[in-house]
């Protein structure tokens, strides 16, 4: 019942919001409030998870922090609202959150019919399958008749049905909303297969296997069955706020491309390179164009780090997950991450 109540309340809120979605309205509200309200996943190691002190950390969280640093000059003016895959769009549509950084796949439907906008891609992902090693399965093509654990209301759920249809196989879904409950169902053996984005599979395998089982007991199958470009979303109607989110993401990539890190950013202020001078606001103009402080990139990199630092710390070599950077390398290193120039 609580789900209905929540949805009904949100529906009512939509009805009552006399809202005029003028440009800049969301940004004004954020500034007046003194904090960005950021919708994050309820707990995916590496992307958004509350650590032992209750502090949110992860790749998704760093987007929220970067936006906060750009607007307020401080990265910690963020209120985090954990949202399940089913709550997230309604929460953003109704104004409960300003920004959704929720491992959300960009699709045409979501960009249009939902009344939402994507900014930039934080992570190039793809959907995969994880199984218990004991089953002896080597390929997703051998999964005919399997019971599959999957989160409802996701592109994952649709890709799964498409993949099995395309390969003339059948499956039984077990669909539970809370990601913790899905994992529990998978690890207890209720399902043969757990499917979601490969990054989340790696996170689950690294951080959530209940003892006495170990991560080595589970294997992620080689097939990647979909493109899942993950990125943050904002509401239609405030283009300035959307620009700030988009360029906060690009700033982190630009910083990596030009070798600006949280460690050396102070020395970089003295750099003679005109591009770096422009990025860090030594040559003014960029901040004014975006409607934020001229030192916005400095603040982001100093407090949050560049994209590479963020990646390495949360999902890369310095984390439990140790996911290979793969296609998420910068374009200069043969990856897909390519930020338009800050000029």
């Amino acid at each position, binding site marked *: 019942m609580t789900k209905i109540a929540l949805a009904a309340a949100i529906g009512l809120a*939509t009805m009552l919001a006399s809202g005029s979605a003028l440009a800049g309205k969301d940004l004004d509200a954020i500034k007046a409030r003194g904090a960005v309200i950021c919708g994050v996943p309820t707990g995916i190691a590496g992307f958004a998870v509350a650590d032992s002190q209750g502090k949110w950390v992860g790749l998704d969280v760093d987007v929220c922090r970067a936006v906060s640093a750009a607007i307020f000059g401080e990265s910690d003016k963020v209120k985090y609202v954990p949202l399940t895959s089913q709550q997230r769009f309604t929460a953003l549509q109704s104004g409960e959150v300003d920004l959704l950084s929720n491992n959300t796949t960009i699709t045409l439907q979501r960009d249009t*019919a939902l009344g939402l906008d994507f900014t930039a891609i934080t992570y190039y992902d793809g959907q995969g399958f994880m199984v218990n090693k004991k089953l002896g399965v080597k390929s997703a093509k051998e999964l005919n008749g399997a019971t599959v654990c999957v989160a409802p209301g996701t592109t994952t759920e649709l890709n799964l049905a498409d993949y099995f249809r395309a390969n003339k196989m059948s499956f039984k879904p077990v669909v539970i909303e809370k990601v913790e409950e899905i994992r529990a169902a998978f690890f*207890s053996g209720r399902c043969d297969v757990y499917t979601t984005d490969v990054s989340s599979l790696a996170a689950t395998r690294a951080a959530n296997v209940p003892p006495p089982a170990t991560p080595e007991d589970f294997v992620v199958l080689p097939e990647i069955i979909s493109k899942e470009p993950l990125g943050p979303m904002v509401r239609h*109607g405030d283009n300035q706020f959307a620009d700030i989110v988009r360029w906060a993401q690009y700033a982190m990539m630009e910083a990596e491309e030009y070798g600006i890190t949280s460690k050396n950013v102070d020395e970089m202020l003295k750099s003679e390179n005109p591009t770096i001078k422009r990025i860090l606001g030594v040559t003014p103009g960029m901040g004014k164009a975006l409607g934020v402080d001229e030192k916005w990139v400095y603040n982001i990199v100093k407090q949050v780090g560049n994209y590479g630092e963020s990646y390495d710390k949360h999902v890369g070599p310095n984390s439990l997950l140790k996911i290979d950077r793969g296609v998420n390398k910068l374009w200069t290193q043969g990856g897909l991450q390519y930020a338009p120039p800050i000029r």
Partner: protein
Amino acid sequence: MAVETLGSPTKVKVSPWNDPVIRGWVFQIVVVGLVGLLAYFLVSNTVENLQRQKIASGFHYLEREAGFEIGDTMIAYSPASTYARAILVGMLNTLKVAVLGIIMATILGTLIGVGRLSPNWLLAKICEGYVEMFRNVPLLLWLFLIYKLISEAFPGPRQAINVLNSFFLSNRGLYFPVPLADPIHQWMGVALLIGIVAIFFVKRWAKKRQDATGQPFPTILAGVGLVLGLPIVVWLLGGAPHHMSWPELKGFNFEGGTVIQPEFTALLVGLVLYTSAFVAEIVRSGILALNKGQTEAASALGLSRAHVMRLVLLPQALRIIVPPMTSQYLNITKNSSLAIAIGYPDLVASVNVTINQTGQAIENILIIMAAYLSVSLSISAFMNWYNKRIALRER
């Protein structure tokens, strides 16, 4: 003035402002107008907001392909079916669990309620403990506990508990054989219906005969005979087709036969255990509300304890029991939406996925509300009819 008019039948002229009739009308028109305005404001504002934010609206999406799979379906469904069908599948699943839940909770609750009044100390205490245990813990926790017990305690399908090579119990559910589809099954269904109708007439006839001659007739036994016997006779006449579909371990799971899934079991068991505790209290209060003299008089007539309960106490207690029971039946129906927590694909689950894939929350919430409202109103209407039927007729 008032003193002068007292007791006089003539009409007194009052100003329209003080006329209670006119005043009543004015107030009613104002209230209706305000409600109408509020409704108009809400609807027009919503439509305007949706249009401005470019959020799609309307019910056209119901015709589109749903694209997601559902784990437990009573009618044919595939990802290629429409959203409308996906929602219908969810609706049927909700009805299935609600109807079974209502029947089972009524039976169990009545037994427990009567048990609490038993002179047997142990039985009464056990029933009391049951009521207190189930009614004082939230239903959601019971659902989680039962679901966890099923999925953690039972082995995987390859190590399934095997009973007579035909029943297989595992964390995928209980698999058991079913007869292969045969045209005779339809006729057996017809025979079953005829049997049920026949019981009604037999009961009437038996009552008449007992009133006339005083001889009791074993109605229950005859009823069981009719309901079971008629379909069996039809089956035998049809050549007794006995081909069965047996569950067999193939690959990951069993194939063939049919299955009762853990999610369904957990939800049904949780709903029944929880609601029967309330039903038990309603039944107990209904019986206790009767005058003690009823029991004593019935005993004095020489009726056995079972007869006292069945023929004297329960029929009278029903009048007290039925109205609050209606609320419990509605509760079962509405509480079944907790299914979402343990992954049973009920109406709410189907609609929630649809909301997420289409983004049309308001239309879908309207569908959910309309569906629950119509089911609940049907239950109320039936129970009100039944209540009128058994109500004390004053002559």
